[in-house]
């Protein structure tokens, strides 16, 4: 216990640790924001395909295509993140030239999160009022207009919530990525904390991650609520 307290004091006394934590926060924030943005776009496109191409959708697609899409998404979702990351790291090497560091962890995060986001967004899009879609069809809307002008705008609050959930999930994945060469607070916790028996560092890094999650959730919740015109 005494050791823990002396470690704690050391953290706040030495600029080296402070810089380490600030770097960790920056790397985590950076990789999470970039990964979430790209993964959300991919997931959104997949979700729209899943909903629109369904046999009851506004533009049914051939069954084999839909089946394949579903199976691929299910497989990607069922592989544990750490293992998926190991599989995808060669892709990182190809795309960004390295397997180590913050940037290298972005492609695996995207590949892991996109299918998850696709399912999340799919659920929201399916909840678009059937009647409203029918009204749009009756007005002569094309399938693209229904997606772009009806489904997505009507689901805006739910989509913001999905984005928030995705952001937080990716933040968690990113921390895990720290264990196998990724950057960020996860790396700080593992390299400077766990591996060096410095539990104070581990604790501080964890608390910082928790604070980031809280901030993301608060902002997301606020934006979703503000966007919802049904709550007036």
């Amino acid at each position: 216990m005494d050791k823990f307290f002396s470690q704690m004091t050391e953290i706040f006394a030495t600029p080296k640790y402070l810089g380490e934590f600030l770097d960790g926060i920056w790397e985590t924030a950076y990789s999470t924001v970039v990964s979430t943005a790209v993964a959300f776009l991919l997931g959104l496109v997949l979700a729209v395909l899943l909903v629109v191409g369904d046999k009851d959708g506004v533009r049914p697609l051939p069954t084999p295509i839909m089946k394949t899409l579903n199976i691929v998404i299910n497989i990607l979702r069922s592989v544990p993140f750490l293992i998926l990351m190991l599989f995808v790291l060669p892709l990182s090497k190809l795309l960004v030239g390295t397997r180590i560091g913050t940037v290298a962890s972005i492609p695996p995060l995207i590949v892991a999160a996109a299918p998850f986001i696709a399912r999340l967004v799919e659920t929201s899009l399916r909840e678009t009022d059937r009647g409203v879609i029918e009204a749009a069809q009756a007005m002569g809307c094309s399938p693209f207009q229904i997606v772009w002008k009806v489904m997505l705008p009507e689901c805006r609050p739910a989509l913001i919530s999905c984005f928030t959930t995705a952001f937080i999930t990716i933040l968690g994945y990113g921390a895990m990525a720290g264990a196998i060469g990724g950057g960020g607070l996860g790396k700080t916790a593992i390299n400077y904390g766990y591996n060096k028996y410095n539990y104070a560092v581990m604790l501080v890094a964890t608390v910082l991650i928790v604070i980031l999650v809280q901030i993301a959730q608060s902002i997301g919740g606020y934006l979703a609520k503000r966007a919802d015109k049904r709550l007036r």
Partner: protein
Amino acid sequence: MIKLEHVSKTFSGQSEVHAVRDVSLEVAPGEIFGIIGYSGAGKSTLVRCINLLERPTEGTVTVDGVELTALAPRQLRAQRKKIAMIFQQFNLLMQRTCLDNVCFPLEIAGAKKEAARRRGMELLELVELGDKAGAYPVQLSGGQKQRVAIARALASDPKVLLCDEATSALDPQSTRAILRLIQKINRETGITVVIITHEMAVVEEICQRVAILDSGSLVETGRVEDIFSNPQTDAGRRLVYPDGVALEELPAANVVRVAFDGGSAYQPLVASLAIDCGVKVNILGADTRNIDGKAFGTMLLGLPQDPAEAARALAYLRGQPNVTVEEARDYHG
């Protein structure tokens, strides 16, 4: 304006459902046409066959001279802009303001934003909701939402307005107001209106002709006053006289059915019968309605047991204008 020929719609699934069976009907331009039936009779499916939200399994649909059933998706979408529709649940875009809802069809058609907003405001003024332009649907009452839906429906200058149970979610007062509005728009623009409803009151309020739908089949079509004063089918009678008459409560003999078929006003028939020929009759049941200021409906009268008095009453009744009398044997048939 609208012509359905041998339209059938069968939903295949675990068991086949014949929602619409071999329906043929024609709606004239500028007419307000009612389609009435109990829930499950296939009304909603039938009206969706008019704009092909449901594609009929058999038969052809022609609107404004264009056979919709023969069109490719893109052409069909262009034709649908001429066929507006309003719904029981209003189906407004909840995340858009009233004005943006009204502008929606114009936006879809690629209109300029300024022009669309001007037209949208005009339409909101028409439905007397100009002050709600910036409000969101959630802030409106049911009647107001339906007004916005009507304004939105009119935005694309349609030739046909389909109303699918448009007043069924509204209270009686809002129902009346909405029907008045539809009537006014029909008179001013000559738009053809098809009204789907399960409420007889709605049909009698504004329709000129009505079709009765029963288990997917069209069982009766005609002028509203004809069908009201003298429904020919069981389904028709059940709709016109929803409460029916308990048969066993009626005397077995000497019952006549008196039908009012549009005399200029109600006459105090029973009273004048008593005064003019001194015969007292029992009113066993009556269902009369005021349609456009004329009396329609029927009355069941129990005549006196005395044959001479009964004959006198019968003769008197038969002598009245705008009234037909028949002996109501079938009430115990």
